[in-house]
């Protein structure tokens, strides 16, 4: 109808260091819905974009890992709040991306919001669950504490453009890691929109960086990058050739590698595995000394 208003389309951009740049390569690719209708042009990120994202993630690591667990928990909870407020937008985007009915897409968005809430609560509990005092056989205080491993490259899963994405990003950052995320190549728009949520949720710039493009093209430089500490290969499920290639590249600086599960049900209860995969254990010893005379009955 001629009275219909022409809507304003969004230019989808990357999210790197808290800013929304285009790909330095100037490349875009066509993103379609499940029926092949044009949805948008997404940036086709380059190796250089990947490297820029790693620099941003490394820069953000000190502040984010040094923030209190309570603070990180509140920031993740804030992400849930912001996502809840954009429920309609994400329902539409997920429906288009995954070819779901509006009701089923809404359920995915709801589950994604709930997942942020679930992980938010973990920030100040994981250390008590997996760390603690060790009863060594000697006069020493000995304490093990989990610490974030550093910069984590995440190849987001295919086929679950929002819930799958949140399910791999939240466990990485809740413990203090920073992330470079390669969105599902065929359904990147919810991921690029999630960046807008992160940018307005007190998540410091650089903590999560989102790239769209080819997992193979971006995975290789990220898996080989000497300043990346770990890789989550979730998105290589079903492509054992790529998974193996990236795991081999990751060996060069002994990155921690989370291999893809053959089948992943992102609606299932997540468990702690994805958090623990990107934690180091630090153990600190200190002599306990004595209180003066031997045999003191203090």
């Amino acid at each position, binding site marked *: 109808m001629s009275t219909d208003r022409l809507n304003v389309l969004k230019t989808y951009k990357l999210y790197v260091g808290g800013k929304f740049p285009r790909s330095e390569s100037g490349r875009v690719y066509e993103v379609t819905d499940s029926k092949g209708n044009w949805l948008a042009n997404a940036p086709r990120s380059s190796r250089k974009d990947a490297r820029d994202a790693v620099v941003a993630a490394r820069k953000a690591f000190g502040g984010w890992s040094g923030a209190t667990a309570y603070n990180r928990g509140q920031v993740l909870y804030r992400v849930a709040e912001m996502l809840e407020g954009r429920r309609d937008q994400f329902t539409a985007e997920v429906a288009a991306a995954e070819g779901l009915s509006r009701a089923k897409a809404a359920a995915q968005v709801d589950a994604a919001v709930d997942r942020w809430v679930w992980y938010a609560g973990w920030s100040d509990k994981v250390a008590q*669950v*997996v760390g603690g005092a*060790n*009863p*060594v*056989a*000697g006069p*020493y205080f*000995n304490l*093990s504490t989990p610490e974030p*491993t550093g910069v984590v490259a995440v190849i987001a899963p295919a086929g679950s453009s929002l819930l799958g994405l949140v399910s791999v990003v939240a466990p990485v950052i809740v413990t203090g890691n920073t992330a470079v995320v390669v969105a599902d190549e065929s359904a990147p728009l919810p991921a690029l929109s999630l960046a807008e949520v992160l940018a307005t949720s007190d998540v410091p710039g650089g903590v999560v960086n989102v790239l769209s493009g080819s997992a193979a093209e971006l995975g290789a430089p990220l898996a080989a990058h000497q300043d990346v*500490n770990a890789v989550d290969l979730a998105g290589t499920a079903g492509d*054992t050739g790529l*998974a*193996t290639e990236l*795991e*081999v590249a*990751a*060996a*060069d*600086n*002994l990155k*921690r*590698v989370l*291999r893809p599960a053959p089948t992943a049900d992102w609606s299932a209860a997540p468990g702690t*595995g994805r958090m623990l995969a990107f934690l*180091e*254990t*630090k*153990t*600190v*010893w*200190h*002599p306990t000394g004595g209180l003066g005379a031997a045999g003191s009955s203090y």
Partner: protein
Amino acid sequence: MTNDATHPSGSPAAPAGLFSYAPAPESRAVVDIAPSYGLFVDGEFREAADGGVMTTLSPATEEKLSEVAHAGEADVDAAVRAARTAFTGWSALPGAERAKYLFRIARIIQERSRELAVLETLDNGKPIKESRDADLPLVAAHFFYYAGWADKLEHAGFGPAPRPVGVAAQVIPWNFPLLMLAWKVAPALACGNTVVLKPAETTPLSALFFADICRQAGLPRGVVNILTGDGATGAALVGHGGVDKVAFTGSTAVGKEIARTVAGTGKRLTLELGGKGANIVFDDAPLDQAVEGIVNGVFFNQGQVCCAGSRLLVQESVHDELLTALQRRLRTLRVGDPLDKNTDVGAINSAEQLARITELADSGEAEGAQRWTAPCDLPSQGYWFAPTLFLGVSQAHRVAREEIFGPVLSVLTFRTPEEAVAKANNTPYGLSAGVWTEKGSRILAVSQRLRAGVVWANTFNKFDPTSPFGGYRESGFGREGGRHGLEAYLEH
């Protein structure tokens, strides 16, 4: 340094300017080393399929101790098959029964600890004081600790019904042969796995004695298999298709090679690799204690320790005072016969390792660091390297960057805590670090910012079966010891 040919090679050198010590050798009679050993596969000793053998030497004297089989691919295959067959029964055993086998092993190790300590010292070259007072007590304690986990795994935080992984391929180094065996074998068996273990080429004997302990304990055949051999044996083992889990302790270069081999196979992997630990001394540290910690940190086991404190970072204002005290202390170290109970520093494990240490130390001089060697006489036979300091080391020097794995300490300075942390973390490794200061808040602040798996504050080189050990970054991944050490051997 003099190499006094007239000095009897069997007794420790008298420290210059101090009273000398009479020899106090531990008796070799307590251990009976056979002229040759086979591979331990499926509960029996057998020759290598291709008849291959190799020799193991005493590094302190270069005398031949024994001949051991050199396992090839056929032997690897037979051992993995034996472990696979044994897995069915072993993993189905109630945890309480597995626990009792491990408790038996722990007790037999305690009973035979003097014999094993002497054996370890003969094959490795480490002082009897260390094998007797550190290695062996820790070996027994490790088995005792993990024995207790075998029937409590559902409480360990890895789910309500954690299952074993399967057959574990374990490759261990020569610096703590029996202790590294314990770190690998005890948690694997407690969790219900079976193992194929390859001890290091230069120190195969204590693992073979451990096979005999398994026999005495009545351990079912095939649960523990021991393959002696070289790097090719290890490569064949970790590459074998019948293996579910690979655990390796050794160099970072080999660790990376193993990670590439394992990539794409789905095998689980843990790696405990090299280090370049920083030992940070602040100006308020108790200097006499710090000196002892520095010495223990880098001269324990001749510095052949992955978590050695091989970089001393000393605050500028106490540099001279600390170095004077350190050099005074190093002059008193007794270097010589590892079997002598007074010996502080024993032999380097092999000619190859001695050559590596020598080359790196020479590079320190060539690059402009100032070399200082503790005055001591070295025996004329065997592989020896006197305790050595490098002063005026910069972060660019190879002796500050590369793992030397020998009794060589590189001394660097700093002015502020920030600089100390930055220098300590300026390495691709991340295994250990030390902090010396009387200020509690500084210990906690610095410890928190050190990217290392173990931080010793006002102490160094302490180990315990309950305490998880392992690295950040290129020092590897996974933890050994404690509840954390179970994770590598459980499906969860």
